């Protein structure tokens, strides 16, 4: 999904996650209607633009937050899942680090790992790759692609990088002024995009 700043992308994601009240429209996941369902029942995990990591927990505790009960102990399998995530997201050496010491990119990786650990039915990513260098981004996208192939969980990702969108998405959404103005396979949406740009240029010239 992409669109200009302030066009409502984050708002739409928060709505899907259940963090904002839905006043109209339908919102379905795997055929289940989500409207009116409280956020913690939806199993839709949202990774926000600047993710809210729990400041009282270290990196590992943040990642494993979702599946620990108040007094929970963890079994071997969960420990293995944690190790795999720490490695996938290149967070191994930071395992025990306090989250306020993390760099911006590190925080985002912890947040994505935390989301995957929660075994969501859908994953929403809000500009999570923006603060990363090209190499890191590629490797994370590969991790997510593998995850998606293994679990079949749909991923909706917001980005400003049209190239990235084109390269990674199976379907593109374009938003403007709070509405989805285009939706479909990447080629098609970008095609529409281009012709619209031409149209608006033409309009400007008419005026001039």
């Amino acid at each position, binding site marked *: 999904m992409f669109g200009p700043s302030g066009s409502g992308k984050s708002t739409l994601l928060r709505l899907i*996650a*259940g*963090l904002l009240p839905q006043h109209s429209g339908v919102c379905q996941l795997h055929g289940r209607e989500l409207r009116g369902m*409280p*956020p*913690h*029942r*939806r*199993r*839709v*995990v*949202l990774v*926000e633009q600047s*993710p*809210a*990591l*729990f*400041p*009282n927990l270290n990196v590992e505790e943040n990642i494993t*937050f*979702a599946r620990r*009960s*108040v007094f929970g102990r963890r079994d071997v399998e969960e420990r293995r899942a944690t190790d795999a995530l720490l490695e996938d997201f290149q967070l191994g050496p930071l395992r025990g680090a306090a989250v*306020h010491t993390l760099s911006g990119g590190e925080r985002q990786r912890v947040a994505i790992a*935390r*989301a995957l650990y*929660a075994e969501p039915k859908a994953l929403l990513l809000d500009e999570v790759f923006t603060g990363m260098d090209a190499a890191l981004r590629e490797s994370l996208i590969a991790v997510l692609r593998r995850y998606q192939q293994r679990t079949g969980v749909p991923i909706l990702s917001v980005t400003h990088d049209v190239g990235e969108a084109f390269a990674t998405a199976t379907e593109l959404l374009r938003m403007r002024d709070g509405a989805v103005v285009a939706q479909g396979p990447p080629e098609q949406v970008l095609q529409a995009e281009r012709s619209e740009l031409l149209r608006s240029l033409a309009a400007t010239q008419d005026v001039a």
Partner: protein
Amino acid sequence: MFDTEALGLTLKLASITTVLLLLLALPLCYVIVFARSRGGVLLEALVALPLVLPPTLLGYYLLVGLGPLTAVGRTLTHLLGHTLAFSFPGLVVGSMLYSLPFAVQPLAAGLRSVDPRFLDAAATLGTSPLASFLRVALPLARPSLLTSAVLTFAHTVGEFGVVLMLGGNIPGQTRTLSIVLYDLAESGDFAAANRIAITLLVLSTAALAVLYLRPDRRAS
């Protein structure tokens, strides 16, 4: 002679009251801060009421209201085998009522200032509101929980009106330090009052030092 019995009694009363009140304050704060209903507002106002009632009034109402003249009081007296007045459990009840707002208010204020983004994050991760309260809000509001505990304890140690009205000055049961000090002051025994004051100061300076010099006090 220094009245160690009264000191022990006072500390016992303050500890029991603090523990019980914090256990009570947690669910109350959950409803007050997290339930966005009118009920929460009503409850908060109700919990705040003992604030404005002088301890002598509370003590008087407990004396009369839980005394043998009312049905409630008779039932209680029957259950306990004695009147609530002039007994340690009676002081605990009185202290809890008296200190309730001091346990609830700092904690509620602390919970209220927890950034809602953390609660949102917990919710999308599948954490129920109750679990979010326990695992996210409460740990983040820890300084306020501590303030609640300290103020409640202190408020109970310093309690005088309720004890005077309800206690009956029975050594080992209801004769707390504040009463002992009152008696000493009335009989003009400055030396004995000094001994108590010094003991309290030493004890409390030690306690406060433990509390305030903990290395992890300020999240950086």
